[in-house]
């Protein structure tokens, strides 16, 4: 874990942000800059305008929840932010680099280097141990075997899964599987972690546990987080909420009383869910 922490601290912005936490947010460098993003799909003869001019800046160290009903454009925004898709018009600058018109392979490289994904359905490889799942992004990033092992172990430790390295997904609870997925997203030291409905398949207690990890990563390591959710109570764990409607940003506000998942967990009656098995 230490390595990841160190790396984060060495980033000047993160350090700055860490010290100036509540006062000087605006000064932190932007990780995501969406400028008048349009996305149009052609379905048969019909043109569908999924995004109609979205401009959004997310700075380093922010924890942003993106909300909106289905069809509001939040998934499309998510895909564009995640470099899985390209905007029809507009520019997208990720971590200082214009990525709006990159080719398929260039976007794959960007995803490998700068973005960590966490999905609703965990999407771990079955019949593959936790540690091998976490190693996967590093295989594609051509990181050597020793370093892979070391980083994967650290990442699993960071999400509280020490001793579960060799477990296969079917030997882990939903919450644990999602934590493996978070470790996998962390391991290439991305500029940004994108979580698409990460609590959608989890019960409320496990959801809080997962949010606790996100908050901890965000606070302690200054990791920039973008979370897509349709549950407003989950969005309250973030520091900022962006609400989409009809392909536009409808609301964009700071959360005054950010929920603290760690505190909530401590106040819940203890269960031994995590350490049985």
């Amino acid at each position, binding site marked *: 874990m230490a390595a990841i922490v160190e790396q984060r601290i060495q980033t000047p912005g993160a350090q700055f942000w860490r010290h100036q936490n509540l006062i000087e947010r605006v000064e932190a460098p932007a990780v995501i800059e969406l400028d008048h993003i349009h996305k149009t799909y052609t379905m048969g003869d019909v043109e569908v305008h999924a995004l109609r001019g979205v401009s959004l800046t997310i700075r380093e160290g922010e924890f942003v929840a993106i909300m909106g009903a289905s069809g509001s454009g939040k998934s499309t925004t998510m*895909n564009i932010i*995640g470099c*899985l*898709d390209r905007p029809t018009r507009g520019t997208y600058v990720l971590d200082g680099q214009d990525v709006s018109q990159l080719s*398929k*392979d260039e976007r*794959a*490289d960007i*995803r*490998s*280097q700068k973005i*960590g*994904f966490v*999905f609703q*359905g965990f*999407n771990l*490889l*079955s*019949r*593959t141990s936790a540690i*091998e799942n976490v190693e*996967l*992004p590093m*295989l*594609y*990033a*051509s990181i050597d075997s020793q370093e892979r092992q070391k980083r994967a172990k650290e990442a699993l430790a960071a999400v509280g899964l020490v001793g579960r390295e060799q477990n296969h997904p079917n030997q882990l609870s939903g919450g644990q599987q999602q934590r493996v997925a978070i470790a*996998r997203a962390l391991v*290439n030291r991305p500029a940004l972690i994108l979580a698409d409905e990460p609590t959608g398949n989890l019960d409320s207690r496990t959801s809080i546990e997962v949010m606790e990890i996100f908050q901890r990563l965000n606070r302690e390591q200054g990791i920039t987080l973008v979370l897509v959710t349709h549950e407003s109570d989950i969005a309250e764990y973030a520091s900022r909420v962006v609400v989409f409607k009809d392909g536009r940003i409808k609301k964009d506000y700071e959360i005054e009383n950010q929920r603290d998942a760690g505190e909530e967990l401590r106040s819940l009656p203890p269960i031994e869910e995590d350490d049985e098995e």
Partner: protein
Amino acid sequence: MNLLAIIRIAYRALARNKMRAALTMLGVIIGVAAVIAMVSIGQGASASVQAQISNFGTNLLFVSAGAQNVGGVRSGTGDNGTNTLTEDDLQAIQREVPSVSMISPMVNSRSQLVVGNQNWNTSIQGVSEQLPGIRKWTIDSGDFFTESDVRSGARVIVLGQTIVDNLFNGMDPVGQSVRVMNLPFRVVGVLGRKGQDPQGRDQDDIAFAPYTTVQKKLLGTTRIQVAYVSAVSADATYTAQVQIGDLLRQRHKLSGNQPDDFTVRNMSDVAEAANETNSIMTWLLGSIAGVSLLVGGIGIMNIMLVSVTERTREIGVRLAIGARSSAVKKQFLIESIVLSLTGGTIGILLGIAASLAIPMMLGWPTLVSTTAIVGSVVFSAAVGIFFGYYPARKAAALDPIEALRYE
């Protein structure tokens, strides 16, 4: 990203589903094993013919009555054909062809030998006293019969070891009497043991008597169908073949455009004919086995296609976390090559095992062919690439967003 990493990824993916991998390989395993086993049967037959031929001696020629080499209908086995080789012809060959050292007619009679209350059915060959020199027989005890035995048509016989073993119970047969078709023959000698020929036939189950005796007493004919001729050296066989041909045409008064009424063959002709048959057999067997290899390849393609569909989400995840589509394509291609090559390797081992087991179980000679092994490896790799390419391309073409949403 380097190929080694992709190979590792492919191996891990295969290791996750060992049962499926094993079943996929089965087609290639059977295909390759079949190709190797079939080709080694063919090659074994070839080699055994070769060995037999070299066993005969490279300076051996056959002269036979009738124009067997004239194509089509004139097989030359009618009355005309079979009478065209006479004792005088043979004597003339010996006398007038300098490249010929020895000559012996061969008339064959399959008869029963009786000693006391024991009997044995064997091949009695009527030959001249020169046969042991031509066919390289040694004499164990007694002597081979002499020229005067041949001239007088004496009822003398030389026995092979198998006959001695079966009729004489350890007694020395030399000087004893053997009855053939109720005629007593005096045993003058016993042949040295030759053992089995390369095709597993017992070469010692044979008896020799003067051809004059066999013709008159056993067959009741004066025909000579075949004669063994020994050239002075292996290099002289071709000369001998031509000279014998010229002499016989002259003696038979054949004019320029009349076809030969006899056949002179040397062992390399015989070898060539036998090889041709064998290589046709080898190709036939090999291609039938090759079809099963092809079917195995199609099996791989099937499973890979199913696998691409089944693993759509996995592919989506790989693409999302930073795999280029070329890496996904290579992964699937390598998976299929690994399947076919591993299958191929197991198939080679099985094929070699089968090639070693066949001679023991069926008694057929086999010869494991390096060409077949190399060919199978190349072919199974080709199968992997060819049948893996389409599914791999399909996998690489997936859109990560769609693939991640796939249920």
